């Protein structure tokens, strides 16, 4: 496994780390591109992307993890292009760079949270993308997202959290008995939980149809998608509200896989969760190698 610094883009202003397999790049394997998770620079939360890149390289994949402009060591753009557009164009520049340096023709994009938005949009517009790993994916722009759905997802998340962590705790009931609890909050949670089937029916009306259509079109194109969600997070609730029915209609499919990890948080903080996630991603990557 070899690592080197890459500077690429129009004015070589983007900075990334290229991780090569020990035996060099295999022409038939896709290259992986790891995208920023929010403002965290290219090492990823808990340095997970470094470990992921090294493991994927050990399996034979060429891997590039890089910083979008204005993040980490990459310079701020001077053309004032909105991030939604610049992120896609910079991901394509990353792919161009790997094509020039290693002859890569097919690509898999890996994103966590905001990185999934860029991965999905780039996959939609660039046929070189043959796969995407979408970790706690939010496929809509935070600016255009349906606020009512977010509020609903947040309530459901809170409800689910209370349902699991508070309702069954003896201390919570002790507080009710001693008058220290918020009756309104607890009753609200129970009510939300009980009426959840109605919420699901209503939510079907505001699901982002375009995303569902794009998902279908990617799968028809042969793109493999791997969603991993942390149970209990708002993004999973939003996913359930807006896309779960559509996903169910598309499965079973060897092109689409959804994994939900229990008891973990948005960035997979605990070491055992990081290890499990890495195992899932490597196992899925192996299926890409067989294609």
């Amino acid at each position, binding site marked *: 496994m070899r690592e080197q610094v890459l500077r690429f883009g129009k004015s070589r202003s983007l900075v990334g780390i290229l991780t090569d397999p020990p035996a060099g790049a295999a022409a038939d394997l896709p290259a992986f591109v790891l995208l920023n998770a929010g403002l965290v620079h290219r090492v990823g939360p*808990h340095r997970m992307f470094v470990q992921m890149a090294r493991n994927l390289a050990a399996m034979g994949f060429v891997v590039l993890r890089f910083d979008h402009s204005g993040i980490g060591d990459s310079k701020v753009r001077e053309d004032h292009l909105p991030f939604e557009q610049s992120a896609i164009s910079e991901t394509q520049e990353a792919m161009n760079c790997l094509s020039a340096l290693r002859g890569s023709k097919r690509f898999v994009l890996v994103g966590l949270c905001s990185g999934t938005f860029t991965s999905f949009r780039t996959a939609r517009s660039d046929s070189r993308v043959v796969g995407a790993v979408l970790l706690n994916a939010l496929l809509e722009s935070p600016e255009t997202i349906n606020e009512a759905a977010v509020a609903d997802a947040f309530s459901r998340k809170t409800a689910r959290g209370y349902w699991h962590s508070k309702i069954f705790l003896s201390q919570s009931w002790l507080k009710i008995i001693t008058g220290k609890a918020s009756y309104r909050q607890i009753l609200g949670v129970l009510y939300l939980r009980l009426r959840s089937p109605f919420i699901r029916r209503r939510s079907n009306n505001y699901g982002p149809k375009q995303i569902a259509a794009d998902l279908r079109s990617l799968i028809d194109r042969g793109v493999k998608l791997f969603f991993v969600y942390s149970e209990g997070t708002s993004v999973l609730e939003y996913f359930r509200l807006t896309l779960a029915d559509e996903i169910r209609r598309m499965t079973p499919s060897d092109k689409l896989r959804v994994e939900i990890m229990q008891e973990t948080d948005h960035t997979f903080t605990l070491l055992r969760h990081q290890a499990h996630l890495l195992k899932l991603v490597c196992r899925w990557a192996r299926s890409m190698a067989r294609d």
Partner: protein
Amino acid sequence: MTLEKINPFFFGYSATRLFGCYHAPRPGAARDCGIVLCYPMGHEYIVSHRAYQKLAVRLSQAGFPVLRFDFYGCGDSAGDNDQHHLGQWLADIATAIDEIRRRGRVVKVCLVGLRLGGSLAILAGAQRGDVAGLVLWDPVISGKTYVQQLTQIHHETLQHADTPPSSALVKEKPTEILGFPLTDSLFADLIKLDLLAIRQKPANNVLVIKSDPDADGGRFTEHVKSTAAQVESQHLPGPQLWTADVNKVLVPNQILGSVVAWMSRVYP
């Protein structure tokens, strides 16, 4: 807009390659003193990365050649998260000092470090005897207190997570802190860390920055003075990066400004 001229690269020994970013001094304003920025560890590294990048740019604009680098097993450098040792990190500082002298064509070198990065900086200074100046930004004075504090933050963070893990119970000896392993060897290293045990003068000039109003930094400042170093202490209330949400990046501008002003005044 400031002109940022940075050069990211790998350096050092092949078995322990380090990643660094060299910030060349503003042309025409170069000073004869190089600066090495020592990052803190674990989640504190992630949270402070942007602040370090901004600090490096501002120091290089003030005329200093600057190298910020990732310790072994951290950031983009070689090594895994479970290969953390204070001894290796002190060796990394030596490698980084050689590198800034070569790239910046300077002999005089100062070290700047936040939290454990500050502790390593003063230890390196005391061991080597050739470090001109030190900026110690909320340095970890007692490793034992540091581990206790991080353990508490770790458990509090997990308890407030979307789904608190059932195993997030307080253990006598923690094995991980906010996404990073705390190995037996690192734990043993940290428990022994005590900056009040330093006897040698770590540098001629030392700036101690305290952002935590509750921290008892007075005893530490007095101790460093007792080594015959010229010590200045500044209390600058600001965000304590180590308690921040690990998914946020903070840039405490007042502190960065004070570091640049002190360096520019002491090394004209």
